[in-house]
C-alpha cells in the first residue's frame, strides 16, 4: 500500500502506472474476447476501411477490425512478455543467488557463461534460439527468457555478494540458521526492491523483443495477432492504409514508455539512497 501511494505521488510513476494499468485492462478484455468485433472475422466488403464509427481503428487487407486485433495482440504480446520475464527472473535469481553463495568455480563458470550470452545483442540471440527450435509463441517465451536471464543473474549476484558479508548473515550462522532460511530471509528479502525495478524495465524490453521476433515472422504465427505481426502486415500497405501501421506502432511505443516510467519511479521509491524522507 505504501508503495502504491508512493508511485501515485511520483510524477513519472503516476503517468507510467496509469499507462500500464490501461494496457493490462485492454489485454484482459482482449484475452476474454470482449472486443468490438471478432478479431479473426473477415468483413470482405469493408477491406482496408479507414477508421469510422463502427471500425474505430479501421480494417486491414482482409477486412478484419484493427482495434479488435490490436486488443488481442496486446494480450498476446503481454502474455509472452510476462511469461518470459517471469522465467528470466526465476532463473536469474536462482543462478545469481547460488553463484554469490557458493562462489568459487561454480560462480566463475556461471558468470563467464552469462558474459557470453550478454555479448550477443538481445534480438540476435533470440533469433538464433528461435531459428534452432522453430517459431511459435512458447519458443519465443523460452528465447526471450534466456536472453534476459543474464541481466537478472547479475542484478541478483552483486547485491547478494555484499549481503552475504553483512553482520546479520554472520549472526544467522552463529544461531545455526539453515542455508535456505539465510538465502530466503536475509538475502532474497533484501533483493525484492532491485528485482521489482528490474522486472518492470525487463517487461518493456521483452515487449520490444517479442514485437521484433513477430515482425520477422518468428514469433506469434498468423492468423493470431500480435503487435509485431500487425506491423509486419502493415509494412507493404503503408501508403494506402497508414492506420494499419500507426496504431500498433503507437501501442508498442506507449507500452514501453509506460513500463520505463514506472520502472524509473520504482527505482526512485525503492532505492534508499534516493528515497525521500
Amino acid at each position, binding site marked *: 500500500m505504501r508503495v502504491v501511494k508512493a508511485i501515485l505521488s511520483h510524477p513519472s510513476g503516476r503517468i507510467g502506472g496509469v499507462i500500464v494499468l490501461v494496457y493490462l485492462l485492454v489485454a484482459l478484455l482482449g484475452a476474454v474476447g470482449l472486443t468490438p468485433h471478432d478479431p479473426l472475422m473477415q468483413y470482405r466488403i469493408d477491406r482496408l476501411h479507414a477508421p469510422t464509427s463502427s471500425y474505430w481503428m479501421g480494417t486491414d487487407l482482409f477486412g478484419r477490425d484493427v482495434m479488435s486485433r490490436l486488443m488481442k495482440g496486446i494480450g498476446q504480446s503481454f502474455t509472452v512478455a510476462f511469461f518470459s520475464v517471469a522465467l528470466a527472473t526465476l532463473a536469474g535469481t536462482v543462478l545469481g543467488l547460488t553463484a554469490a553463495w557458493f562462489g568459487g568455480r561454480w560462480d566463475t563458470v556461471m558468470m563467464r557463461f552469462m558474459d557470453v550470452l550478454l555479448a550477443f545483442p538481445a534480438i540476435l540471440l533470440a533469433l538464433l534460439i528461435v531459428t534452432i527450435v522453430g517459431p511459435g509463441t512458447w519458443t519465443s517465451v523460452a528465447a526471450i527468457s534466456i536472453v534476459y536471464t543474464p541481466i537478472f543473474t547479475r542484478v541478483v549476484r552483486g547485491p547478494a555478494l555484499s549481503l552475504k558479508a553483512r*553482520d546479520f548473515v554472520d549472526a544467522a550462522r552463529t544461531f545455526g540458521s539453515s542455508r535456505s532460511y539465510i538465502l530466503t*530471509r536475509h538475502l532474497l528479502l533484501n533483493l525484492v526492491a532491485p528485482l521489482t525495478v528490474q522486472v518492470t524495465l525487463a517487461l518493456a524490453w521483452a515487449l520490444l523483443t517479442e514485437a521484433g521476433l513477430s515482425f520477422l515472422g518468428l514469433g506469434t504465427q498468423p492468423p493470431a495477432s500480435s503487435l509485431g505481426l500487425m506491423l509486419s502486415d502493415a509494412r507493404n500497405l503503408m501508403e494506402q492504409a497508414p492506420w494499419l501501421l500507426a496504431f500498433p506502432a503507437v501501442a508498442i511505443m506507449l507500452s514501453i514508455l509506460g513500463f520505463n516510467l514506472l520502472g524509473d519511479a520504482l527505482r526512485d521509491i525503492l532505492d534508499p539512497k534516493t528515497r525521500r524522507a
Partner: protein
Amino acid sequence: MAPEMKPILSVRDLHVSFGPAASAKEVVHGVSFDLGVGEVLAIVGESGSGKSVTALSTNRLIDYAGGRITSGTIELLRADGSVLDVTCAGRQELTGIRGAEIGVIFQEPMTSLNPVLTIGAQIEESFRLHRGLTGAQARDAAREALERVRIPDAERRLKATPNELSGGMLQRVMIAMALACNPRLLIADEPTTALDVTVQAQIMALLAELRRETGMSMIFISHDIGLVAGIADRVIVMQDGRVVEQGDLGDILDKPQHPYTQHLLHAVPHFSSGVAARTDGARMAAPLPRPTLEVDDLVVRYPLKGGWFSKPVGAVHAVDGVGFDLLPGETLAIVGESGSGKSTTARAVLGLVAPTRGAFAVEAQAARPGQSRLPVQMVFQNPYASLNPRLSVEQILAEPVIATGASPDKAVRDRMAALLKRVGLPEDSLARYPHQFSGGQRQRLCIARALMLNPSVVVLDEAVSALDVSVQARVLELLVDLQHEYGLAYLFISHDMAVVERIAHRVAVMYAGQIVEIGDAKSVLSDPQHPYTKKLIEAVPTIDRRKQHFELDTRQVPSLVRPVGYEPPAATWMQYGADHKVRADA
C-alpha cells in the same frame, strides 16, 4: 597565546540549518566563541550535538553537506591582517581560505584519499594548486611534507598507493596534505576515532608537536573528553546544537558547572588504570567452578599463495596458540589493536572461522570446533549492520529459535516480550522494524536476540564501540546486570581500555596473534608487565593526564606472514601474583 592579539576566529550567534528553506531544520542554535592565535579549542559532544557542523561552518564546507548558515557572523583574521566574514564571503574568497588558511583533517583517512593515485601525486596536487609548484619542486615539497609528519622512508612512501599504508600512516598523510600550505588554523574532526589507541597517541603527539613548531591554531572535535585533555587549551561542550559550557581546560575538568558536562566526565567510562575494575569475579570463590568455555592452543592460519601454480609461499598466522578459560558469570576481555587477532579468536570460538587446529570445550562437553553447535552467542559491533532491515523485531527474535528447528509458539513469544522488557525496549517493539530504533536500542535488540536461546557464553565483539559515550555507559550497565541475572560468561573483545575496565574481571592482551599477558583485570591494568601492554596502557588518554607529551614512535607492527611450516617457539610464561601471567619474549 598573547591576550592582546585579536582572535584568529570569532564566531557570534551562529545558526545553521539543513534542508530546503521551507522545511529547514536548525541544528546549531546560536553558538558563539573566540579562538586565539596559537590556541587549541576542543569542541566536545556526542553525535548530533552540532560540533562538526559548527567547525565546518568556519570554512563553509558545510555548504556541500546541504547546510546553510541562517544567521550570525564568523570573522576570520586572515594572514594579511584583514578580517573576513566567512558567512557572506564569495566563492573565490572561500577557495582562497580553504587549504591556505584553514586546513581540515577528517575521521576516516581511508576514504579521504583517492585509492588509485599514489600518495605523492595527491600531496603534490595541493602544492600545485595552492603554491603553483611544478615538477621536481612539487615532488621535493611533497617529500618534505611527509618528513614533517614523521613518516619514515618518505621518498619510497610517495610512490605507495593508499592501500599499502596503515590507517595511522594515512592519517599522517592527510595531516601532511592539510598542512601543505601552512594554514594558520587546523580543524581536526575526530581525527583519531578510527585508529588504534597506540596510533591515536602517535597522531596526538604529532599534532601537539606540529602546533608547537608552526604556532597554528586548532579546533579539535571529539566525543572523548579524555582525549581532549591531552591537547586542548580551552573546551566547548555542546549538546543538541547549543554550547552548554565553555572555559579553560582545567576549569571544565575540575569544576564543571553544567549537568551535561558533569555527566560526560563522570557517567561515561574513563580509564583509571584498574582502579574501577570489577571486584565481583567468579575466581573469588575458593573451589573454582567448572569453566564454561575452555580454549586450548587455538591456531588460525590463512595460506598465502603465489607464483604461477598457486604454490603456498607462506601463511598468515592470524591467531597462534591462544588458550584461556572462562568461568560462569565471568568476563574475559581480549584487548589488542586491529590485526592482533582478537576478532579472529572470537569468530573461531563461534565457528564463523575454521580454526587450523585447537580444541574447545564448552561446559565440559568436549567438542571439536565446528562439529556441534555451541551454546555461544554473539553481539556484533555495528548494530546497523547486524539486524536485517526487512525483518520485524518479532521475526528477528524468532530466528535463533527457528534455527533450532522449533516453531515460535506462545512460550517463545512470552520470552520475547520478557527479554525486550528486560533489555529496556518498549513493549510494542515486536511489530516494529530495526530502522525505527536508535543505535543504542538496536544494540539492546541484538543483546535480546543473543539471549533468546539462553546461551552460557556471549561473545561481545566491540559491542559498545559504535555507540555514543553516554549510551555506551547504559548498555554496559545492562550487560553487567544481565550477567548477574543469568550467570552469563562474556568474552568481551575491545580496543577501548576504559570500557574494558568497567566490564572485565580478567583481561587478555593480544599482540600479533598471540596472548602476551593475561590475568586479573585490576592487576593487568594497574601493573602491566609485558612491554606491549605497558605501551598500550600508556597510550590510553585519560582526564588525569593533561597536556601529556607523547613520545613519537615510528616502528612498524611486525608482519604476521610466516614461511610454510613455521611453528612459533613454545611460550614460556612468567607468573606475577595469583592470577596474572606474562609471556616471556624469546
